[in-house]
């Protein structure tokens, strides 16, 4: 097994385990202005990623990401299925020619994921979605790449957390929360906080 695949597996597994472990917390976040199922939906998809782990084509990084995408879009309903499925699919596709990606290529893969999410959901930064944590976190990761993978991931995690908390006060323009109008300002976005928690878990699990 290559070191790249090893690390990709660590990241995917950590994300999946975090989704399963935080099922009720993520549901609570989605209850304030949404319909309370964000954690449930994610957990139903990612628990299959864990249980079917051995069948996820661990030949190289792109195929691992794409197989994960298929599980997610097959098994997650709601808004999150298409969004998260698209993100993993685009990231995997972007690495087709880079099975041993450099830091720059990882950043490019994450930008591809972001573009996919924007298209799929017709959303952008500022609409109060997970993009509001993911986009600044990837920027921070990129800016810190020169310091090595560990510090770069830590920078992403810290930015994601701050950005997720900053969604409180924003007006939701997409998803169910948008129907509550001004009242949506009172809470953080569930998806954004989900991204922050996952990123922190990856940071904690990472070994340079």
């Amino acid at each position, binding site marked *: 097994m290559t070191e790249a695949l090893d690390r990709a597996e660590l990241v995917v597994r950590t994300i999946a385990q975090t989704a399963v472990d935080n099922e009720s917390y993520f*549901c609570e976040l989605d*209850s*304030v*202005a*949404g*319909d*309370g*199922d964000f954690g*449930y*939906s994610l957990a*139903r998809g990612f628990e299959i990623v864990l249980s079917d782990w051995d069948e996820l084509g661990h030949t190289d990084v792109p195929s691992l990401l794409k197989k994960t995408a298929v599980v997610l*879009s*097959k*098994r*997650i*309903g*709601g*808004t*999150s*299925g*298409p*969004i998260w*499925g698209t993100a993993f699919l685009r990231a995997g596709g972007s690495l087709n020619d880079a099975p041993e990606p450099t830091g720059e290529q990882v950043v490019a893969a994450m930008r591809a994921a972001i573009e996919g999410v924007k298209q*799929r*959901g*017709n959303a952008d930064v500022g609409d109060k979605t997970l993009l509001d944590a993911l986009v600044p976190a990837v920027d921070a990761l990129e800016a810190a790449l020169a310091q090595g993978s560990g510090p770069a991931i830590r920078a992403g995690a810290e930015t994601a957390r701050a950005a997720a908390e900053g969604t409180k006060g924003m*007006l939701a*323009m*997409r*998803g*169910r*929360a*948008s*129907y*509550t*109008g001004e*009242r949506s300002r009172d809470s953080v976005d569930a998806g954004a906080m989900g991204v922050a928690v996952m990123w922190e878990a990856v940071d904690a699990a990472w070994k340079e």
Partner: protein
Amino acid sequence: MKKFVNDPKQFVPEMLKGIALANPDTLKYVPEYNLIMRTDAPNDDKVSIIQGSGSGHEPAHVMAVGRGMLDAACPGDVFAAPPSDYVYETTKLLASKKGVLHIINNYTGDRMAFDMGRELAEAEDITIATILVDDDVAVKDSLYTVGRRGVAGNFFVIKAVGAASEEGASLEDLVALGNRVNSVTRTMGMALTSCTPPAKGSPLFELGDDEMEMGVGIHGEPGRRREKLASANDIVDELLDACVTDLPYSSGDEVALMINGLGGTPISELYILYGRAAEQLASQGIKVTRSYVGEYCTSLDMAGASVSLVKLDDELNRLFDAPAEVAVRIF
């Protein structure tokens, strides 16, 4: 949580199994894709009509499958759109030479799931068209949202295109008809209580004993405004007025009036709302010639109601009169 439930994760499959067992001659449950379909579908002489959306809205939409209504419903989990894969598989199972019609309530998750499912199915040469239902006038400022939601008025779209599809209407004609019904339908809803999703086990939001939520959708999400609890008359006046002034409906119009219960409200109370609404419409010269009082599109056990109006004409009257055989049996 005061619910009849075994394993919350099996809530939807167990419900679907029950529906199929109770209607063995007409309905089939396909567990692999979480779908309910007519036993006699697909039929190449008839467009197949499919509706998906989250569960928790029963009788919408799984109990609206039957002759003259839907050919299949592919529900997701409670309040979650179905995975796109299920949309794709349902569409393949129901593929008809005359085409497949997707009826979607305008919610982000549902639209994305059906978009992806449609792409996958079209790649296999299935002809598909889509109707988006968006009858909810509570969503005022559609600039800041994905647009109006599709709620209880959706039943009128299903009923009309379902009836026309039995008469052999083309896919194109059904789309035009469905869009026309949607364009003359308006709905506004409110909640007296929150609802409790089985997987969450506690109410989605807290509402004081003297509070109510005006302008809720059907997924237990809060509405636009929280207000002091009002009398039945004041509540229905506000819901009705929001609908009437939006289209607007005006003196001389003939309309269908639906008072839809959200799941926890007894039918006695719905008839109290109905009586007031009918009188208010009469006083404005708007004539109610068709009435629907009961549960059509619910939010689990939420106490609350929505009011829908549909402007009628000869064609719609004929289609609404046509027989419909659905899994909601009465005596």
